[in-house]
């Protein structure tokens, strides 16, 4: 099926589907969704932003983590309609002017992934965690990143990458 650039899918409109608008990665977007469509599916299936991953679809893995108004949330347990008017940031929105986000660079440098499936969620989650400002030690970073599972077991390197950015005092 064709997806037009607005994310409005012309076919299969259910009676109660509606056009909602929000900002995704700084760009105003509109999607035509039924209330039961998750934010994750709206991003992936309607807006073709497939960087955000579906792992479990039940809140248990963190692969679908995105930032909503700056806070890390799980897009699989969020309905798209609940976020009308919000500012969503996904992995696609992190690089600026062809420069990778410092955390993306750190993940590459520290070999912080194998298959890469958990990586978009890990990076969005790490950005949320650093802005929360509640982790003061490596152990606390580990604890506050525990909502992102890595099936490949890259966890040690993931924490190394995050610690590098954290110890450098953030990235702004």
């Amino acid at each position, binding site marked *: 099926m064709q997806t037009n650039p607005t994310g409005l899918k012309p076919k299969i409109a259910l009676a109660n589907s509606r056009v909602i608008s929000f900002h995704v990665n700084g760009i105003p977007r509109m999607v035509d969704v039924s209330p*039961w469509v998750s934010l994750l599916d709206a991003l992936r299936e309607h807006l073709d932003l497939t960087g955000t991953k579906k792992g479990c679809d039940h809140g248990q893995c963190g692969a679908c983590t995105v930032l909503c108004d700056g806070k890390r*949330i799980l897009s699989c*347990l969020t309905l798209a309609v*609940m976020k009308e008017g919000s500012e969503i940031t996904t992995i696609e929105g992190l690089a600026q002017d062809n420069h990778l986000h410092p955390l993306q660079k750190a993940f590459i440098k520290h070999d912080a992934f194998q298959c890469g499936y958990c990586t978009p969620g890990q990076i969005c989650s790490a950005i*949320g965690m650093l802005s929360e400002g509640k982790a003061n030690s490596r*152990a606390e970073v580990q604890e506050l990143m*525990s*909502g992102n599972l890595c099936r490949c077991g890259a966890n040690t390197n993931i924490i190394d990458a995050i610690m590098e950015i954290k110890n450098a005092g953030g990235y702004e």
Partner: protein
Amino acid sequence: MNNFNYTRAKNIEDAVLSVSQNSDAGFVAGGTNMIDLLKYNLIHVTLLVDVNHITGHQAVTENADGGVRLGAFATNAETAYHPLIEARYPLLSRAILAGASAQIRNMATNGGNLLQRTRCYYFYDPHTPCNKRKPGSGCSAVGGYNRIMSILGTSEDCIAVFPSDMCVALATLDAVVTMQGVDRTRSLPFAEFHRLPGNTPERDNNLQPGEIITSIDLPANGFEKNYSYLKLRDRSSYAFALVSVATGLDLKEGLINEARIALGGVAHKPWRVKGAEDFLAGKPPTPGNFATAAEIIIAGAIGYGHNNFKIELAKRAIVRNCLMALNPESQRPGAHPSL
């Protein structure tokens, strides 16, 4: 998940009216339990009423009596990290932060946390009998695989555990839950909010259909000097409790003036035994006295086979957590809770 309609409630009255006029309507707050259950087709709604845009009941504020009010729609993260809670109710802060993950705590609300459903495996499996899901169908956990189930306050009809961490601290602190219906507002002491399964396990709590939780009030005493929350689980983070313990101690001249102990992971509601707290009052805070209190709390516990280990685990956890409460600085978050 079935298709449904969606509306944003502007205020409490609006929300209550929408849900009370339609028996197939439900509230959604953080959505972390509601949307999950909808996806498993364990709940069917024709209308979902979003309470996140109601103004008011979003904040954590001081009450005139010296206590603190938690808005029902404040998130678990906002609550745990609120300066008033960190400073005066660190036990609550710890318990919230021991639950779920940072992402889920950013979404989950205080009201929703009280109303989360059990994690009993059979409750989630529509192909098996479960009295909580389908009254009268039987309980698959009694005689089935029951490692995570209750050891206290069970009935023949249900041995499920209420899985909240936050609520174990709220029970310890003697919180009060306020709810609003179409024609009345009422409050319940925390101990009377959740129910034991009895022969109506389909009812987790005493909230009536159409009622909405608006706030949770904490009395002035937050036991901020001597407190501890210990959560024991299969992996060291992002897992539900097998056994958890919240302890608040008020010490005077080396003796226990007042003790509060509540358990999670062992019953259909947070478990507190007044007899044990009375026993500790006036006594020195020794391992021996805490062990006797643990025996009083666990008296009458029944194992169902796979969960027999919880009886001994709970006793040891109580003693360990009460000792940790004597030295709260020794606690660390998550994986290695000290001692």
